[in-house]
């Protein structure tokens, strides 16, 4: 029974830590827009938390480069499992317009495993919320597979 409650909690309270790998701030503003009264993600139990040790979902925006990939990996490793990663915006997905630059790794998934991709430049807040819901469905499928 306790396990059922824990699984229910996992689906109902995704705490997000938001890491900006040098984004242009477009995606970041959209993430913060999700917290405003218009979108109010807290009604789904989503809290934007500052501490990777408390977080369940890592939301990455911006271009991953050779400097900050270590930081990204470090933050990912500091999160206790079960955890999910969402890559956001054109830069997070592939490097975007900076893809060809000499210092760009190209996409969050080159460094850490990504569960959900949210496209757009920048993505709409609705798309971000959708991304979190998708990540949760993935977690749910994993939980069901684990029994």
């Amino acid at each position: 029974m306790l396990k059922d409650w824990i699984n229910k909690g996992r689906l109902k309270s995704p705490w997000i830590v938001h890491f900006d790998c040098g984004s242009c701030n477009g995606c970041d503003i959209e993430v913060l827009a999700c917290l405003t009264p218009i979108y109010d993600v807290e009604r789904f139990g989503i809290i934007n938390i500052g501490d990777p040790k408390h977080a369940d979902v890592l939301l990455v925006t911006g271009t991953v480069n050779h400097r900050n990939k270590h930081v990204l990996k470090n933050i990912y490793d500091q999160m206790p499992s079960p955890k999910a990663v969402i890559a956001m915006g054109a830069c997070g997905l592939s490097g975007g317009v900076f893809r060809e630059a000499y210092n760009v790794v190209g996409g969050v998934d080159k460094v850490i495993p990504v569960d959900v991709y949210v496209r757009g430049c920048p993505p709409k807040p609705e798309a971000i919320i959708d991304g979190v819901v998708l990540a949760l469905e993935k977690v749910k499928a994993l939980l069901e597979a684990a029994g």
Partner: protein
Amino acid sequence: MGKLLLATVAVILAPIVGGLIAGLDRKITARLQSRYGPPILQPFYDVFKLLGKSPMTMNPWQILSVWVYLISSALTVFLFFMGSDLLLIFFVMTIGAVFFVMGALSTHSPYAQIGAQRELVTMLTYEPLIILVFVAIAMVTGSFKVSDAFGLSKPLLYQLPLMFIVLGYALTIKLRKSPFDISACHHAHQEIVRGVLTEYSGPQLAMIEIAHWYDVIFVLGLCALFWTTSFWGCVILLAVTYFAELLIDNVTARMNYKWMLKTVWGWGLALSVLNLLWLYAG
């Protein structure tokens, strides 16, 4: 025997009621900010999720600290419903709070260190006031026993109105509400990355949350002492007090610790002395 049963039931029910209060807290806060807000059961979802996360502790000392904090918080509620001595309850509560800080201090994270220092300052701020409240209660009832306060014929609030405001200061600090949420905040503000809670994660964080619910029940119990003559009077007093806390939380910004010390000690001590003088003269 009846007291023991009541206290045991209280210890079992306190986290459930405390969690519901936390849920209502978040819902009402959201409504005050014209948001829809999370479901009332949200704190329970959070805690169960945290219990299911893989443990990630820095050192064994943290685990010990969290257990001591949880047990001492549960013990304060137990002793309170046993009708025990207020001073004993105060010492047990302090041990829990000190261990909570020790756990944060045992890690090397600068955020946790700053949070722990700030938590110590907040303890320094509210503890003398709580002691003064207890002294005032003892002056009226003639003893430090909780059970004697429950045996009064007219509400304590008539004789200690200023002490209730002083307790309100202590309550705001203990509940980590603005403007006194300098060590860690309930709503995950990111200034010092949740300060004293930074290095706690997973099951440990869940236990701290449960201990916090016990604390909420305990401080609301202290407020209830001021209107023990009728059940509904007590309920209305608690509801009004908690709503006032929420309102203050939402209309004020976080202040620094010097401001907190000056204001809370200044007003708290002044109001306490006034009320104690009035009691002494009357």
